[in-house]
């Protein structure tokens, strides 16, 4: 009886302690929030990585927060206002400078595994680096580029030279000459699709047309003085955009209203397409062997191509930065995640991933696209005023393509950008950078 009572007493004494011990254990579990965008395939891939990470790290819980691609900025603004920034978040590379300047991100070098950092391509480092402190704030498995896709049958019909590498890209004269020849070729309705159909609500115009301007010797902004007037509305930019306007006026470019499928739609009405690396999958599915991939043309002295995609950063307010860094390292090394990325023709941002991607390796159909990353890629202006820069530039291009005066539209855009910089007192310390 006394033993029975003794047992009951022991249980009575230890049960609460055990309960509190367990509660303490549960509380000790860290939770990290990961905000991302993406289509169902990517959403599932990230979700699966989170599950595997939790299995490998039982002391960390991962809560995935999905935001639709088109409403990501709104979701991000809401998170900022509600002071609920996630620990890990995906961000569009050109917006990095704005986010770092606003204090939303923290450097990731001390948090991510060294072998992953060493694996980054030059272009990947460039897209994740903040120009003021030269520190790395974001990293990705992937990167991006734009190439010139050609309809083999049409190009052979006009005896066009097919460039084999970035070094022998078409010159402006060649490019415009081919556009003219293609415009007269039977079966070709439009010589080129520059994907005006993506509209001005996406980053497309700045991302894809910006490099053509840079190749012609101009830029969206002076990257030393951080002033748009004198650069964006300078002679080189006006001439470059007038050149593009002439293509539109000549009826060489697929209009916005015709969508984004004219390169491979029935009858293949567009002969060339200036498209992103992701366009290859859909175009090749319809065109099979009739597709050639070429580097972007050299409009001026040098060839220029775009880079940058959605990359991962760790928020400055994260309460578990170590766990966040651990998750990022896990994600970037995860085999299944990489395998899924390969099925999506993802453009490599890590050297080891490039080695695993036959699409981009030497002799692969997109090898030229990967070659551009090391030879011609130029990041979009890494400045906190980038949201204004891209919006003003896209509106100007839209006006010009719709028949507006190039000088007038670019001057208005340059003024708008400079006004934003002035309104923010030069975004210090960017104002001191020369």
């Amino acid at each position, binding site marked *: 009886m006394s033993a029975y009572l003794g047992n009951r007493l022991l249980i009575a004494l230890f049960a609460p302690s055990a309960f509190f011990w367990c509660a303490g254990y549960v509380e000790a579990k860290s939770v990290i929030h990961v905000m991302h965008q993406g289509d169902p*395939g990517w959403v599932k891939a990230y979700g699966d990585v989170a599950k595997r990470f939790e299995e490998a790290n039982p002391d960390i819980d991962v809560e995935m*927060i999905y935001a639709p691609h088109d409403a990501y900025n709104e979701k991000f603004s809401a998170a900022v206002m509600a002071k609920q920034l996630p620990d890990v978040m995906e961000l569009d590379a050109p917006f990095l400078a704005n986010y770092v300047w606003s204090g939303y991100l923290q450097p990731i070098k001390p948090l991510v595994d060294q072998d992953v950092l060493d694996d980054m391509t030059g272009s990947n480092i460039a897209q994740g680096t903040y120009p003021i402190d030269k520190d790395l704030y974001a990293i990705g498995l992937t990167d991006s580029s734009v190439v010139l896709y050609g309809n083999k049958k049409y190009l052979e019909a006009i005896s066009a030279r097919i460039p084999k590498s970035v070094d022998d890209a078409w010159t402006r004269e060649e490019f415009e000459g081919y556009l003219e020849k293609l415009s007269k070729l039977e079966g070709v309705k439009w010589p080129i699709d520059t994907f005006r159909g993506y509209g001005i609500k996406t980053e497309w115009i700045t991302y894809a047309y910006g490099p053509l301007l840079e190749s012609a010797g101009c830029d969206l902004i002076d990257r030393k003085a951080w002033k748009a007037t004198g650069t964006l509305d300078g002679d080189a930019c006006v001439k470059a955009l007038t050149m593009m306007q002439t293509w539109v006026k000549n009826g060489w470019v697929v209009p916005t209203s015709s969508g984004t499928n004219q390169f491979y739609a029935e009858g293949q009405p567009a002969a060339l397409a200036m498209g992103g690396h992701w366009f290859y999958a859909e175009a090749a599915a*319809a065109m099979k062997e009739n597709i050639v991939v070429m580097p972007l043309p050299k409009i001026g002295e040098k060839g220029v191509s775009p880079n940058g995609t959605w990359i991962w950063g760790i928020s400055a307010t994260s309460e578990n930065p170590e766990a966040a860094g651990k998750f990022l390292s896990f994600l970037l090394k995860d085999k299944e995640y990489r395998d899924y990325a390969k099925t999506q023709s993802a453009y490599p941002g890590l050297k080891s991933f490039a080695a695993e991607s036959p699409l981009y390796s030497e002799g692969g159909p997109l090898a030229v696209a990967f070659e551009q990353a090391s030879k011609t890629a130029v990041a979009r202006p890494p400045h906190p005023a980038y949201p204004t820069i891209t919006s003003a530039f896209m509106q100007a291009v839209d006006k010009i393509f719709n028949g507006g005066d190039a000088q007038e539209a670019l001057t208005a855009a340059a003024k708008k950008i400079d006004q934003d910089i002035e309104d923010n007192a030069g975004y210090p310390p960017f104002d001191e950078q020369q």
Partner: protein
Amino acid sequence: MSDLVLSQPAPLAIPRGNSKTGLRIVQTVCIFMIALVMISPLFMLLIASLKDDRFRILADMGSFRAFWVSDPTLSNYREIANFSGELAYGRYLFNSLVILVVTVVSGLIINSMAGFVLAWGSLRGKAILLALVVALYVIPQESIIMPLVVMMSRAGLTDTFAVQILPWVASPLYVFLFYQFFAQLPKELYEAAEMDGASAFRIYRSIFIPLSLPALATVSILMGIESWNQYLWPTLVTQTDYARPIAVAIATFFGQDSIYWDRAMAASVLMMIPVLILYLAFQRWFVSSFVGSAVKG
């Protein structure tokens, strides 16, 4: 002379008959054209939802092939309707239905009560209150959305069903709509019931509500469509699958580099069905309410 007079209407009658027939033909052609313009995108949506190759759908767009499917399949629907599929679209549909039903039912009760009090209640400053309700209507939802996000987040309601229902239950538009409807009902109805000893709530419940079917139908349809199509708000306040509605889920198909037209189309068709049922169920009252408003207006 009289013969002449009698024979006069005859030749006039023939062209009148012809013009009437001609007018009918023109009317029919116009109606047919308008119907074609309205229906063709929906038909294209339906056809595309029966194709399982997203690249094919894209390639067919802009040609008559967009309106034809040679090997129809329900695979897109199967994938979407599956609760335990790649993504829980069945769950999202269920979430949307819950949000719709609760919003509409509670919205009908709250807005009609407010409208009734404004129309028949003995409230001080009623006119000012009414003016304020109308003034609130002109404030666009987008302008208050960010402060609302902060409020809801501080209230701890993020990622719940409540956060998608509570802010939209009371609406100045629907309060005003009910107010207008109730105010036009004969004063004698209210007074007779009052003399019989009925309370204000009893008068509202037993007399005014049964007479307000057209207004109830109109508000149900408008509120239902509004709730069903909410996109920005649930995007901002939902984090996980738990309470995410179908409109936000469909946006998943529009990715950074690719658009899954096949499944997006099937999900859109599924998304249309409940609203269509709601409209068909209340159509008679909905139309009569609009016709009534037009005549009264």
